[in-house]
């Protein structure tokens, strides 16, 4: 399969959207585009399985490589492994759902859907990049559309949030950039003696330990900002809560995953020794994020803040999984990324649906909606249950994999971190049940609510789509596990190959 299609198609969609007139055309085109994205993603999954079952054991499949800038040795090098395929699937799901929930965006609809498609192109590009330059290119590509999406279509203190998000993400990518340049200059002799940005090539080389130690924090913290690494997570609550629904879904569902993916693919994979050295720090920060995010969530009143802070907590699991440096934990981290992406997108979609009807997101102002708008409320409850790790939904599987993997690391600090992380699922239960209990259960707090109408077809479709993903992972995690594990194994091989320095 030609992977470039994954970049080209969303871009074409975006261009087509620009040529449309009126909301109806625009949304039809972007819906069509998103559906085809999803089909492409499934097709990719299929051919990927075929290749793998046919015995193709290459690290990356469907590679394409052409020189872009010969003098800097920058290549257009793309390819996917199981991890990337999983992330691409996630993106396709979230994008389609995002298009569906923004069905009635009537202000500047053309721009809205254009930016959405553009964003998805960036995300796909990021996940298929095997060249650090390209990776960085796609990473930064997404910053501005997010700014505009929040700033124009957002709510509340949207300008502040948009600016904060843009600046903090820029800070993240700046750090990544520094790290990448550092890496680049430490890639000594390739075949032709030049420096290299190529992920696979660099992985084969040995980056000097000193350089690794110097640049690992840059790369990791840089990507970490994207994935809400404590204490650089503060863009998450503000950004998510101000963003329009689709943008929140995209932000939490995909954008934060860029960071996790980067931490894994670039930081850990390319600098395995440094990953070992820094792993205690990662663990500490991740644990703080998990616990502290969970407790901070407990005190929030705004549903979007609740989900945003819980994202901080949940993305902490991703970092924890990566920091634990065991194959299982890394697999778990990737599964958590996918799971959290779907779950949080669903959550935001549900919150968006509630908000568009009740015009409030305050937990204490809502109540009893289960009776009035059962579909939306059920979706909301399910998202909540997924968030608190109900078996049968994706969150459980991912978290448990992280825990299992984490426990394999016998160090006492790591054990403590694992126990604390486990403890957070209790806190998660507290805040989720509080939100669910006050919002959709209890007596109806406002007589206006009695006239609300339940979800329309587009909203239903969006929710069902995401739920299908969540349940597919939750009930049958083995396929995702099988998809991800080889990639995680390769990364761990790299880590284990590196001399243990601790």
């Amino acid at each position: 399969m030609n992977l470039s299609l994954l970049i080209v198609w969303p871009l074409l969609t975006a261009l087509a959207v620009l040529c449309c007139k009126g909301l109806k055309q625009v949304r039809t085109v972007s819906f069509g585009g998103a559906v085809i994205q999803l089909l492409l993603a499934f097709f990719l999954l299929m051919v990927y399985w075929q290749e793998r079952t046919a015995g193709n054991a290459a690290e990356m499949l469907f590679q394409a490589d052409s020189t872009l800038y010969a003098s800097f040795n920058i290549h257009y090098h793309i390819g996917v492994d199981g991890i990337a395929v999983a992330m691409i699937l996630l993106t396709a799901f979230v994008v389609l759902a995002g298009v569906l929930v923004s069905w009635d965006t009537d202000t500047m609809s053309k721009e809205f859907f254009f930016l959405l498609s553009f964003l998805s192109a960036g995300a796909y590009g990021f996940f298929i990049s095997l060249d650090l330059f390209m990776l960085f290119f796609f990473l930064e590509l997404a910053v501005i559309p997010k700014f505009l999406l929040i700033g124009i279509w957002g709510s509340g203190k949207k300008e502040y949030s948009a600016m904060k998000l843009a600046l903090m993400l820029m800070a993240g990518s700046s750090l990544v950039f520094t790290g990448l340049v550092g890496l680049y200059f430490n890639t000594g002799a390739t075949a032709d003696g030049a420096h290299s940005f190529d992920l696979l090539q660099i992985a084969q080389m040995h980056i000097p330990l000193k350089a690794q130690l110097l640049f690992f924090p840059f790369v990791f913290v840089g990507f970490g900002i994207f994935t809400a690494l404590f204490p650089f997570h503060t863009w998450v609550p503000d950004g998510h809560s101000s963003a329009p629904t689709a943008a929140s879904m995209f932000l939490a569902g995909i954008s934060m995953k860029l960071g996790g993916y980067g931490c894994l693919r670039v930081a850990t994979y390319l600098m395995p020794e440094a990953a070992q050295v820094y792993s205690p720090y990662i663990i500490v920060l991740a644990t703080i994020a998990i616990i502290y995010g969970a407790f901070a969530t407990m005190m929030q009143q705004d549903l979007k803040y609740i989900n945003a802070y819980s994202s901080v907590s949940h993305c902490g699991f991703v970092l924890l999984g990566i920091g634990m440096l065991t194959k299982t934990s890394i697999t778990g981290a990737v599964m958590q990324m996918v799971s959290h992406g779907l779950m949080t997108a669903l959550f935001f979609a549900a919150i968006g649906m509630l908000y568009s009807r009740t015009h409030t997101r305050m937990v204490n102002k809502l109540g009893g909606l289960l009776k009035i708008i059962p579909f939306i409320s059920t979706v909301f409850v399910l998202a909540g249950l997924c968030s608190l790790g109900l078996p049968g939904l994706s969150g459980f599987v991912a978290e448990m994999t992280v825990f299992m993997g984490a426990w394999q690391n016998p160090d006492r600090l790591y054990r403590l971190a694992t126990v604390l992380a486990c403890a957070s699922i209790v806190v998660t239960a507290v805040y989720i049940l509080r939100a669910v209990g006050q919002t959709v259960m209890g007596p109806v707090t406002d007589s206006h609510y009695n006239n609300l109408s339940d979800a329309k077809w587009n909203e239903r479709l969006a929710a069902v789509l995401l739920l299908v993903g969540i349940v597919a992972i939750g009930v049958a995690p083995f396929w995702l596990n099988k998809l991800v594990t080889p990639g995680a194994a390769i990364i761990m091989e790299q880590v284990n190959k590196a001399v243990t320095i601790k």
Partner: protein
Amino acid sequence: MPMQSYILLIPLMPLAVFLVLGLFGRKKLAASAGVISTVALLLSAVLAIITAGDYFFSTGKVNGVYQHIIAFKYTWLQFSPGVAIDMGFLIDPISMMMIVIVTFVSLMVHLFSLGYMKGEGRLHAYYAFLSLFTFSMLGLVLSSNIFQLYIFWELVGVSSYLLIGFYFDKPAAVAASKKAFIVTRFADLGFLVGILVLAFNAETLDIGMLIERLTNLQSSWSLAITGASFMGISALTWGLVLVFAGGAGKSAMFPLHIWLPDAMEGPTPVSALIHAATMVVAGVYLVARLFPVFSTDATAMDIVAYVGASSALIAAIIACTQTDIKRVLAYSTMSQIGYMMFALGVSKYGGEQGLGYMASMFHLFTHAFFKSLLFLGAGAVIHMVHSNEMKNMGGLRKLMPVTHTCFLIACLAISGIPLLSGFFSKEEILTAAWHSNKFIYGVALFTSGLTAFYMFRLYFSIFWNKQNNPSPEPDEVKAHNTHGEGTLSMKLPLVILAGMSVLAGFVPFSAYITSDGQPLETHIDLVFSIAPVVLALTGIALAAYLFRYKNERPEKYSGQLGGLYKAAYSKFYIDELYVFITKKIIFNGIGKPAAWIDKNIVDGLMNGAAAATATVASAIKGIQSGKIQNYALYFFAGIAGLTVMVIYLWN
């Protein structure tokens, strides 16, 4: 074996019902939901009984020992080589017993609900949740993998949450469901970490393998887990105690019991199913499931025993003072589970020493019948008077003769009156306790007296003791309630369960279910039985004295007991303690500061960085003074500075 092909159907039937009702129930199947799920469950129950019968009477026994059979196994999630979550069915005596109990009680509850829930809204959801619960519970008891068990464990918790909160527009129900879930979640944390500890050291999640590796004291796994220690306690103990914590949470053992009384906010049939017969004994089942491992560790066993015994006693004391009939039953449940738990705790593995194990399972078995009967009876009463409070009841024996009789049988059974089922199982427990721990025996004996007292306090308050308050006179009640004592579907389960409560004790239990699978010879020592029976009768007599007719004595005595009564009435202030810890310490002490820190310090750092930049920017604005001569001066200063620097650096 044909068994394996249809054993899958047992849990899948309710699952299918759940899915069908959950997806399509609201619009199309609202009316027929109850019938569909009842029929499906009937099939399940029949299959379960056939399967169990097949196992116990023909296929299960090989060389006189009941085998552990893996009926089905599928790798669901592979963590690392050897460590995987398998979805499998483990067939052994206790799982067979459990599927019978679960399907049977569930069937009774379904039947009862047909009448009890008539006219309620969202019945499809109710039956969907019930089916989900039944599925999860069956999955739990059949689990062959400890993580699989955990998965169903959680699912059971969620279905319990959904069912308790079924009346979701009642804030008390929402709060109770939340409390139940969170408290058990907290306990599950222990279970989870326990699994991690055990699985890490045993390098497997398969229960059979786990037991095999950890009980073989010479194996490398066993050496590793006993060798590793944390805070002076071996990893094995840690793991087992943590796992037990999970079980204690689910089984409402002191001090994690606080959710159970509140859970009575749910519909009464639900209480009968979940909070009497099935889910709450999951903790006992869990310990029993891992019993071979538990039995290798004395510390863990002691903890199990003492937690069980103290729960039994405390719950019994509290039960004496409660006025909400369902709460009385809830505490009674807790007390009885305490019995089962300490029975396990005092037991050993294998042979005569394993009496406690067998007794515990026996009690679990009998308790399921009479306790669900008690709940369903209470449900029938509540259905009648629309209240849970004792003071609104009284003299109902005429109005509800069937209920009255059944309830009486159940009360006698639980009190341990000879020839009823409770007597047999309780005797075995007391015997087991007597043989290993005299202190616990004393506690248990005292508790059994208390049990008789509070059960008959309940019985007399409901069915005798004419009520004094003017509102609903029995006649009026009758006038108000056109449905009288209830439909046949409500009475039938009561009668069936009453029958079971009488007969269950005559099952030769020790022949089938023992710690090591080999039949055990047990006998009832009449002399030994005197003390508990006399105590029980004393309790009943006391209850009759106090509550049979309306009088001033209860208040007088409770006044005399003073502080103790008040403390027991307030459930020993454990709830308040929890509220203090959660609200004051966790909410105000951790949550609020965390949110505050995030808003002010962490975010303040980010905003501060921006503000600092702005400050610097405005501080240096003077350089751009607009005065050309200043510019020239800066220019020259730049040149001078750079020159000095360059010359300095060059040298």
